[in-house]
């Protein structure tokens, strides 16, 4: 999903929705649900809490749709709302398939994590992220650089023992 490429059509849909077209709303939900839900998954603990956070984001989207202005890219407006919605408390432990990712991303400081998710998941441009979180693009890029390097380090540290144990295990029966 590329926010820039969808900018015009997203905005057109939003204008239609403002005029009462629920079909346009459904289309916008369809387009952005996965991104919002994924960010929610990496932000709170547990799928129930992520679903609740996603519901809250889209409820806020519907409630404040009258405030949307066509000059702003829709995705910027949507994620600006999303980061302002308070997260519900976490619930049950995450599923195994996303548990590692969550654990790794969870090591990032909040300011880096937000930038990282908006870039990697929502695929916003740096300038858009700057608009969403209220800073300048250079600051966003600096946070992103730190986030990437920190994640690389964390992932390497987490995978190295596993690889060692695999090697050890492989070798252990033989040994």
């Amino acid at each position, binding site marked *: 999903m590329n926010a820039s490429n969808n900018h015009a059509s997203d905005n057109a849909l939003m204008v239609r929705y403002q005029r009462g077209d*629920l079909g346009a709303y459904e289309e916008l939900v369809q387009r952005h649900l996965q991104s919002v839900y994924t960010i929610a998954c990496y932000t709170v603990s547990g799928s129930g809490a992520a679903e609740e956070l996603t519901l809250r984001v889209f409820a806020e989207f519907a409630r404040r749709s009258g405030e949307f202005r066509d000059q702003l890219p829709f995705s910027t407006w949507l994620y600006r709302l999303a980061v302002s919605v308070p997260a519900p408390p976490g619930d049950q432990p995450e599923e195994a398939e996303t548990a590692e990712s969550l654990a790794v991303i969870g090591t990032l400081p909040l300011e880096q994590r937000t930038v990282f998710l908006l870039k990697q998941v929502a695929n916003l441009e740096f300038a858009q992220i700057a608009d969403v979180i209220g800073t300048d693009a250079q600051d966003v890029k600096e946070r992103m650089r730190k986030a990437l390097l920190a994640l690389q380090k964390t992932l390497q540290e987490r995978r190295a023992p596993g690889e060692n144990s695999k090697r050890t295990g492989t070798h252990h029966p033989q040994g």
Partner: protein
Amino acid sequence: MDCEQFDRVALDLLYDEAEDYARGGAVQHLGHCSRCNGVYVRLKAAQTLSQFPLAVPPTELRDQILMREHTARAGQGIGARMGRWISIAAGYAMRPQVSMGALFLLMIGASLLFLRAHPGDRDSVYVTEKGVPGNESEVAPPNRVTHGTRQAAPENAHGALQVSGSASSAETATEGPTTRGAEATFSDGEHAFNQHHFREATELYDKLASAGGPRATEASLLAAQSDLRGRGCAAAVDRFDRVYADSPESVSGRIAAWEAGNCYSQTGQKDRAREYFQSLAKDPIYSERALRSLAALDQLPIAPQGAAEAPLAPEPSATQTP
């Protein structure tokens, strides 16, 4: 491009957001700078390593979101819907182009307020003249003053009749508005008077007087004055008597007293003339003239009977109207 500049665009290069000129400079710099080349390779590896999977939302989550919106819409009252539309409209209204347009229209509207209104269907415009009291020879004819003046200026040369006009207005104000038909008849009477058609003017004013209304007394006075000009004092003096008798305290009554006094003076009926002049002796407008006339009465020879029968000169300026 130096290393510091490269650091600023490295992320743009990594995510394909760099402008063409910056991309060219960065690629060229990477070709000969091992330090920046190392940084970029490291970032690229981190980016590749950080590709986390997108979570798949449960199908019921989408349905829940849409259901909530449908439910919210269905439960929205007319007030909430109106509020939503007003919010959207207000958003558009805040745009600079719309604001400038509104300001432009406001300026045009405001400038229209300064344009003078068209006179519309008014028959005439009344103008007052302020001055000092003059002698009787300068007194304007009754038609001119009575019909042409609506503002009170009792101390000027035309004072009495201007007061008459003012009193008429006051009477009109207290007794209700004069009908448009009556106003037209007054206008016709004035026109006839100016054309020296005194008989016609008398008839028109008599008609108005008999119709009653707030300006009936004024009409009676004008009829008497027209008759005075047409047929002379002998015919008109009774009319002045009646006007005075009907409303001695009104402005029309005092004018009638003055006219009657003059008529009686001309016809040699000193006692009647004296009565009228004495009634005006304390009037702030007529006192000076009344006292002068009273003094003159004692020296006045008895006029021949025929003099009273002759009509006054038709020239308006020669009228004896105060």
